[in-house]
Each structure stands twice: as C-alpha cells, then as structure tokens.
C-alpha cells in the first residue's frame, strides 16, 4: 500500500539565504482579480496625491553675491560647476554638489552682461558694461598669481550678451551690432546690423551650429547665418523679446521670452506665425532655457516665479516660487535634465528639481518599478476630474494669484468686446484673429 503524498521541490519554496525574498507564485486568471479599473483608479488617485505630497522642488540656495544676479552659464563638461555674473561686475564659480562658491572674480566694472563657457570647458568669456570682452581660465590662479583674464578685448560700445559656438573657436556678442569673433583676433570677423541700434540677446543654434538668432530692441527677432554676409530674416512682434533659446534636439525650433508675459515657440522656416504661444506668466518673461532633452523649457519671469512648459503645451506644467525670491533674471536647466537653476534680484541662486516630486539619490529596482507604474497610472487617468483636480492644483502667492485673475478678466473682457464688435459689424469686416496671429506684426525679409 503506497501512501500518496504531495511531493514538491524544496528549491521552489526554500530561500537560498535568509536575506532573499520569498518567491511568490502568481495566478493571472482575471476572475481572481476582478475590478481592475476601479482598483487602478484608486491607485492612480493615491499616486497623484502622493505626487503632490512629495512635490518639494526646492533643493537649495547659493548665496554669496553682493548684487542681483544678471547672468548664468553652465559648464560645458562638468555638471557640478555653475558660473554666475552679478550686477556689480562680480563673477562667481559655484560647486553645485557642495553648494558653495569656489572662486570669485571681479570681472567688470558695472554689470556683467553675459557669460559663455568655451565648448571644451577650459575657459569662459564675460562681457560687461565696461565695453570689454574678457576671457578667463576655468582653473583658479595658482598661489601668488594675480586673478587676470587671459584676453581682454575693448569694444566700441557696451556688449549686452555673449554666446560661444558649439564646436568652433568663434563666439558671438551683441550690443549695437551682432558681432562674430574669432578667439584669436581682437576685431570681429563679421558684424551684422539691420537698422536697429541695440540687441539684448544672441544665441547660437546648438544643432545647426552656424545659425544664430538675436533679440533686438525694435521688438524683432533676427536670424543670422555665420557664413553669410547679411542677416537672414527677422520677425517683428508687438512687444520686445528679452531672450531666446534654441531647442537642442530639434534644429529649427526656438522659443523666445517676451515682454507681453508670453513665450513664443517659432519654427525658423516659418516666422510669420509662432508654432505655440505659451501663456501663464503674469509679468514680463526675462529668460528661457530648454531642457537638454528638448522636450520642455523653463522660463523666468519678473513676476517672481519660474514656470516649466512642455515644448508644445500652451500652459505650464509647473510653477516654482518662494516667499523670498524676487524678480527672476536668469534661469538655466542643468545638462543632466535633473535640476533647474535660477538667479534672481535678491542675490541668490536657487537650485530646483526639474521634476518636483522626484526622489533624489539612487533608487532600488522596486522603487523604479513603482515610480514608472505610478507615472503611467497618472497618465492613464489624467482626464478623470478628481485626479485632474489634484494633479493640477498649485499653490500661488496671493499677489500672483490676484494678478492671474485680473489678467484673466482682462482677457475675457477683450474677447467679449471683440465678439460684440464682430456681431455688430458687417460680416467679414472684422476677421477672426487667432492667438498665434495676434502677436506678430511683420516679417521682414
């Protein structure tokens, strides 16, 4: 008589070590796991709530400047180094991982208007109100050495901005004209002007590296090709653009920050209408910078806030502000797509997380899985009203909130009026103008 017994392989259920996790056999039979949608909905709701709970984007502040910060630059080869120029002519180099200043240079008299690092990361250029372009070594001077620039170029007029070529030994400055300089020469190799007397910003295209764009004080954005003798084209808008930034992954798109509280993304081939109008700020937008992945950009505004926009979204996905942060003059997105740096009037540089609720540091495998799953759940149920409401809720300072409401009212009133005018005039005499068309005055060839 043989007794029937259950026989199992102990290897299936005995752990090899006590630190190992228990093996859990799964049965995916759908009848055993009912209500998948409601359960996932609950999970999504929880994930959304937790996301808001953990949304603490502020990482730290770098203080040390003795005047408002006017410009910043990322190091092209190192993630931990940041350069900042203040309104008193001081340039500081920061170590971001230690959050401390590693070097201070009295670079100019008056404002430091622009900083650009060389593509190799060995030196950087500054321009200032004292009509000079100075090249500095990235390394601090040795013991007993004076802090002196490598090169100094004296210009005829004040330079307001500088940008370095992506690979070549040329850089561009703007002031009364847009000049292209060879690093080895003291006179510009090319000088562009097109009936305007001052430019506020010039930026090289990081992809098609011979192209440039600049913002001029006559409310125009001008495109250049370094190889040509003349500028390419310009578009004149209703109000002046302060800065612009090219998309680092999509060669023909750039975004400009405008005085009319909006940002505009243009396709450089079709300047007559912007591709997208990004609205949300309640005051002039002063600076803009793309994320290195080219999917989002960050903008700094005079309304004391920073906003993050998706590149093709009309409204921001995130707004950062603190009680102490004043007008934000400059903003940069770190080269590893993780952090945002903002320099503001009250002499502080602030370090923010690009994803507000992201957990910093190394994640375990299970944490990663959960993060991805939660992200997908939030995406999946993002249209459900409750989840939507929680996910979109942001706290705003009272001033900002009030201004937003005011602006909304103004816009509504304007729209209402337009509709009324159209209603009471001959059909076709008042054409419908889309938001995109409204802001462009002319394209000059």
């Amino acid at each position, binding site marked *: 008589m043989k007794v029937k017994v259950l026989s199992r392989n*102990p290897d299936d259920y005995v752990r090899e070590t006590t630190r190992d996790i228990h093996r859990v056999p799964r049965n995916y039979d759908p009848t055993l796991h009912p209500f998948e949608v409601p*359960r996932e909905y609950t999970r999504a709701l929880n994930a959304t709530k937790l996301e808001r709970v953990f949304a603490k984007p502020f990482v730290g502040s770098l203080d040390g400047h003795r005047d408002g910060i006017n410009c910043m630059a990322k190091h092209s080869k190192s993630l931990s180094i940041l350069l900042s120029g203040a309104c008193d002519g001081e340039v500081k180099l920061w170590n971001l991982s230690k959050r401390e200043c590693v070097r201070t240079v009295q670079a100019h008299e008056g404002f430091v208007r622009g900083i650009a690092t060389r593509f190799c990361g060995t030196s950087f250029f500054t321009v200032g109100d004292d009509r000079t372009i100075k090249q500095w070594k990235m390394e601090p001077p040795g013991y007993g050495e004076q802090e002196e620039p490598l090169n100094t170029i004296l210009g005829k007029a004040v330079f307001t901005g500088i940008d370095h070529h992506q690979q070549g030994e040329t850089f561009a400055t703007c002031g009364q004209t847009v000049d292209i300089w060879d690093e080895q020469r003291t006179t510009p190799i090319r000088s562009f002007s097109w009936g305007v007397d001052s430019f506020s910003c010039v930026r090289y295209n990081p992809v098609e590296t011979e192209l440039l764009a600049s913002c001029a004080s006559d409310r125009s954005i001008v495109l250049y090709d370094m190889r040509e003798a003349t500028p390419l084209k310009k578009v004149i808008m209703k109000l002046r653009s302060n800065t612009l930034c090219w998309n680092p992954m999509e060669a023909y798109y750039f975004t400009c920050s405008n005085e009319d509280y909006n940002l505009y993304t243009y396709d450089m081939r079709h300047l007559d209408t912007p591709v997208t109008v990004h609205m949300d700020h309640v005051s002039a937008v002063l600076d803009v910078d793309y994320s290195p*992945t080219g999917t989002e950009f960050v903008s700094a505004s005079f309304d004391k806030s920073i906003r993050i926009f998706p590149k093709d979204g009309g409204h921001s996905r995130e707004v950062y502000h603190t009680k102490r942060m004043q007008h934000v003059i400059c903003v940069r997105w770190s080269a590893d797509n993780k952090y945002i740096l903002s320099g503001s009037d009250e002499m502080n540089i602030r370090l923010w997380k690009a994803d507000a609720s992201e957990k910093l540091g190394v994640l375990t495998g299970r944490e990663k*899985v959960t993060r991805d799953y939660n*992200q*997908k759940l939030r995406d999946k149920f993002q*249209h459900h009203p409750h989840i939507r409401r929680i996910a979109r809720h942001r706290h705003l300072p009272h001033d900002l909130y009030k201004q937003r409401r005011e602006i909304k009212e103004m816009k509504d009133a304007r729209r209402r009026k337009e509709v009324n005018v159209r209603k009471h005039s001959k059909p076709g005499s008042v054409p419908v103008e889309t938001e995109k068309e409204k802001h462009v005055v002319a394209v000059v*060839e």
Partner: protein
Amino acid sequence: MAKTKKKSVTFDLPRKVATVSAMDEEVESDEDFLPDNENIISASEDEDAGDDERKHTKLLEAISGLGGRRRKKMTERSEASLQVSEFGVNAEGAGEKVALSDLLSSATEASRTDGTMTKTHRQLKNLEKRQATLELPLSHQQTEKIQREAAFEKASKEVSRWESTIVHQQRAEQLFFPLNQQPSRPRRMEQLVTSWKTQTPLEQEVFALLHAHRQPTFDPVLTPVEEAQLQAMSLEEAQLRRAELQKARALQSYYEAKAKRGSKIKSKKYHKVQQKAKRKAFLKQFEDLCKSDPERAMEELQNMEKKRIEERMSLKHQNSGKWAKSRVIMAKYDLGARQAMHEQLELNRQLTHKPLPSSELHDDSDDDSNSDPTLASEDQTLPDIVNEASANQKEGANPWMKMAVVLTTAEQEEPKAVADSETPEAAVSDAGEVGEEREEETEEERLLGEFARRRQLRRTNDEEEEDKEARQTAEASQTDGASEVSPSRADRSDDDDDGDEDEEDQMDEAAASELNALFGRLAKQAQQGAAPLGSSAELLDEDTTRVRTLEQAELLAETHNDTAPPVVESEEAAPGHDVDDPAPKGKGHQKVIDPEQVLTKQARSIRVPMTTPAIEDAEDEALDEQTDMIREAFAGDDVVSDFLKEKRKQEEEGRPKDVDLSLPGWGEWGGVGIHTKKQKRKRSRFLKKAPPAAPRKDRKLPAVIISEKRDASVAAHQVSQLPFPFENPSQFERSIRSPLGSTWNPELAVRKLTAPRIVTKAGAIIEPISRDDIMPAKAVAGKRRAAPDIQLGGDAERRGGHHRPGAKKKKHKK
C-alpha cells in the same frame, strides 16, 4: 651707347602698356605702331643729351668693371617729351572721338570687294544704331534683400534635413538620453549573423550545406523547398492527410492511455510478477528457439548484445533523466532518494555488464536472459510508435512535412513500395512472427507510408478513371484500416501472457473496434470532403435535377469550377430559383416575416419616396426595387408602438424597487398545517418598500425619452468630455479598460507597459543632437510602415490563392 638707350626705352614701354591693358581696342591697335615711334623719339633724344652725362656713365662703367663682375645696367627713365602721351600714343588726335565708322572703314572696303556683309560688320552696325544706356545697378537695400532671401532659402533648406529625424523622435515610444549611448546588452543573433563571414573550412562547409538546402537564416519557419511542397499539396490531399493524421493521433493517444493505465498500477508486486512472467516467457521462447532454430537463437543472442551496446550508448539509467534530477535535488533532504539513485546506477551496471564470451550458447543465454529481458520488457511496455510520435511532437517538426518526406522516400524506392503495397498484410504478419521491437517501432512509419501509397494510388486513379474508382478505393481504404489495427493486436497477444493482460486485451479489442469505427467514419469524412473537389462531377449530377435548360447547366458548371463550397452554391442557386417560382421562397422564409403580408397590411398606407440605384443592370434593378420596397415597408413598421414600449420599459427600469430582506426558512416552521398567511405577513415585515419614484422629466412629453440613468454622485468621478487625443469614446474606454499593474499582467508585460517615455542616465551630460544623427527620410518612412517579419497567415492565404487555380486546371482536364 645709343643702342643701349634705345633698348632701355623699348623695355620700358610694355610695362606702361600693361597698366592700360584694359583699354579699348583702339589703343591696342595703335600699339602695333609703337616701336617705330619710339625709335624716332629715342634718336632725337640722343642728340640732345650732353657730354657730361656720357662721361659720367663711362666712369660708372669703369668703376663697375673694377669689381670684376659686370654690373647690371641700371635702367633709367628718361623724361617723356610732350609729344608722347601717357599711354605712349601719339597725342595728335587726342581730342577727337573715335567713331565706329572709322574702324569699320577697312572692313566695309573688304566687304565691298567681297560683295557680302560680314557678320561683325552687321553687329557693329546694330551697335551703332542702339542708343539706350545701361540700367543703373540695384540699390544697396535691394541687393541686400535679395542676398538675404537667398541666404534664408539656403539656411531653411539646410535645417529641413532634420525634419524626418524630429518627426521620428516625436513619435518614438521611448527616448534614451544622452543619445548615442553604446548599448551594453548583447546584440541580436541576426545582427551578428549579417556581419559574420565564414572563415574556417568547416564553417564554409556547413554554410555550403545550408545554402544547398536553402535554409532560411533569419526567420527559420519554412525552407523554400518545404514551402514548395506545401504549395504543391492540393486541398483534397490536405484533407486526406489530415484525416490520416487524426487517425495516427488517435492511435497514439490510445497507446498512451494504455501505457498510463499500466504504469498507474502502484502495486510493486504486480509489476514484479509481470516482469517475472515476461522473463519466463522470453526464456521459454528462447529455449524453444534454441531447439528448433539455433540460427534464430544466435540472432537473438546477437540482438541482446546489441541491446547492451545500445544501453551503453544511451543515457538510460545513468541518473541524467528528469526523475534522476529530481532525486538529486531531494537527495539533500531524503535518504530514500539517495538510495533510489544508487539502485539506478546498479541497474545500469548490470545492463551494461558484458556477458561471458559466447562460446557456450546455452549457459550464456541463461545469464543474459536474467538481465536483458527486463530491458526488453521495459521497452515492450511502451510501444515505440508512441515514443516516436511524441518525439516528433517534441521536436516540433511539421508532421505534414514528415509526410512529404515519407512520400518522397516512398517514391524513391518505388519498386519496393509497390511490392509492399501488394502484400501489406503478409508483411505485417511477418512482423508479428518475428515479434521484435525493430519491427514494432516502424509501425507508425509503415502506417503513414501506407497512407502515402494509398494517396498515390488515388491520384493515379483520379487521372485514369472516374468516381466509381474512387468509391472502390474508399472501400479498400476502409478494409485497409481494419487490417492495420489487427497486426498490432497480434503483436500484443504475442507479448502478453498473463491473465491481467488478457483482460486488458479484451478491453483493447473493444477499443480497437471503436477505433475502427472511428477510422471508418474518418475515412468517410475524408471521402466526402474529397468528393466535391476530387470528383465534382458527382455533385453536378445531383444538381442537374434543378437545372432546366442547357444554358443554366452551363452556368452552373462554371460556378462549380470556381470550387465554391456546396453551401455557397445552394445560396447562389436560390435567387435563380426565386425568379422562376416565388411560391416556395415564402415557405423558406416563414420564420422570418412574410413580406407579402406586411405589404398588404401597411405598405400602401405609407408612401415613401423611392431611391433607385443609378447604375445597375435591368434585372438587378427590378430585384433591388422589390427588396427596397420590402425594406422600406419594414422601416415604417409600427414605430410608434415600439417607441411607447421602450419608454414604458425604461420607466419600469427607472422605478425604485422594493428590497426583500427575508431569508428563506428563517423564523419559519416546516411541516403540515402551517398557515401560509402568517408566513406571508412575516415576510412582508422584511420587505422594504421603495420610496416613490421622483416624477420623470419626460412624463408630459409623449414623444420623448429622457434618460434618468445619470447619477450625479458618480458623475463627479466620470470623464464628461472626450479627451483630446482620442477620436471616439470606445477608444478612450479601451485605453482605460486594459490594466497596467502587475496584479493583472506578467512581469515582462508590466515592464513594457510602464516604460517611461524619456529615460536619462544619471550624472551624464546630455549633448545636443549632432549632425551624425540625421536620419534619411526614407528610413523613417520605412520604419513607420514596418511590416512584421513573419506573416504566416498572409502566406497561408496566398498559398490558398495559388492553390485554387491549380485545382481548377485539374477539373478542366477532365
């Protein structure tokens, strides 16, 4: 001296000329005369020169001569006289304008002499006539604008190269940053293979073999040869083969069941007894053999030796099987398992032990019989046909293909096969007499071979004769089927002697008879399946009863040749029938609504504008009109009452219902004489009355139903509008319905479903995209279309498509 001076001047002149080389022709033409002029000038100059100078130069020459080496003469520029103009032209007519006519004079003279106007002459004349001045160059602004436009065109064209890349990135499921990371994971086999080249002679040989057989390297589904074979098979053959396969499978399952039954018997004693009996029987048989047929016995002995060798070669009893492995695992925990392993090894030793040299046949045979029969019996318990079939399945070899192989081999060895086919039963009986595994093992092969043979026979028959022949073959096949099973029975009776086995045998026989019946049915089915295709004439004959005229028959024949299945055919026939006599159609459609009835009742009262199809044949039009009319009539069929019914239904559904909370049997007595009234009252206590329904919104609107299903409390959680990227609600619902979590999906699927769109590497600088990453537009387009590598379904369809014309041809031949 004078000479030297002259020289100097003449040297000087060309330089001057060079400076004005861009001058008009006039000047150049004058130049020819220059040298002469110059001579004159220099001569006059000579006279004027003073003696002092000459002396001075002489002195200089003398001094230079002192140096030993002759000094190069210094050229001097003499003062130009008034007569010499700046360009070395005689300034006589300096003030005058040169007219074209002056230049032309010689030319015109020449032309006069020729009597024809030269081409240049004419051109010059034209030039003279034209008075218009050249246009001013464009203004600075305008030229700049044109330049800008050209430059912009160029730049935008350059930038547009990125379009495909950007589109690709925007559509990508997942993006990894920084770009151009070196993949750390191993590459796919195809990637390796494409870049790999044969180097060693062995590799080359293998490749040559592979290429000879045209074995596909990338998606090894079917070789071209196999595909061709598949295509060559007609439908009937396929059906027959299927039937055969089914038979084989049934046989196999039967054997498996039997083996299972035998192995399920737990009793050790039973097995022991059985083994012993088998051994005994074997011994007996062997002794008999020794007496009656020593040669045979010798053979048997050799066979045993062979067994031993095979045992040594095989992995049996070497603790490498599944069971042994499980024992190994358990050995850590279980002493019994260890012992079992040892026993196995012992058995192996026994089996592979070499017997004494076979000088004395009898003695040795005894020894061997102790060891070998166990093995033999072991093998015998499970007929090899089962093993083989299952092995086939495990290998995943296409059974159809195997058939093809058998067929080809059969074709190759045609004479032998024919001989076998003539006496299949004899061969089988032979096998039974021998009673060896070798024969048994080929049972399935034989079976399949026979199928193949029969198929061949059938084919030849097809071509030669008509349906009668086919029927005969069917009968033959049935008898064959019966004969096939019988030999196996014979085998078994030989093997098994025990009483238990007898019982089993009886059961086997019963099962076999059942099987026979099954195969008979199968064969019939196969025949029926084959009939409409192989011998469509039969079906056509049946149909002739309906066809009235010759034309109709022809028509039908044509339709039949399209190998339409009989069902379709009947449908096709129906409308034709309909035209002829509509009366039976009414019968056919009795269950549906009788159109005539409906038409008489209501169609006349409802007048609906008719829309007739514009492009139709006359006959079709008439038919369609009729059907349209019917449809129209139905469209107006009692809509109002339907609507009312529906509304009432909705109201009913919307009304709150009473809730019965009573539990059956709770607080009740059972048995005779129980008052049901009391119970009812009790029950009513647990009946919760529903509150009166709120008045419906559509209660005063008789022609409207306002749905009241919307629940305000739930609506707050529901999506009220269709979100942007979705085009219809069902799409959106589908996206919500499929779960993402690991509760519902296996690990890999979850990983795939929850993959984040953008993945960045920690601590890495993400550089802007570089020009090397530009993707050609074609590549993107190709990726978008990206067809799956393997299209079995599509292939099958295509195959079917190819196949049909072939079948058609066959029929035409008849």
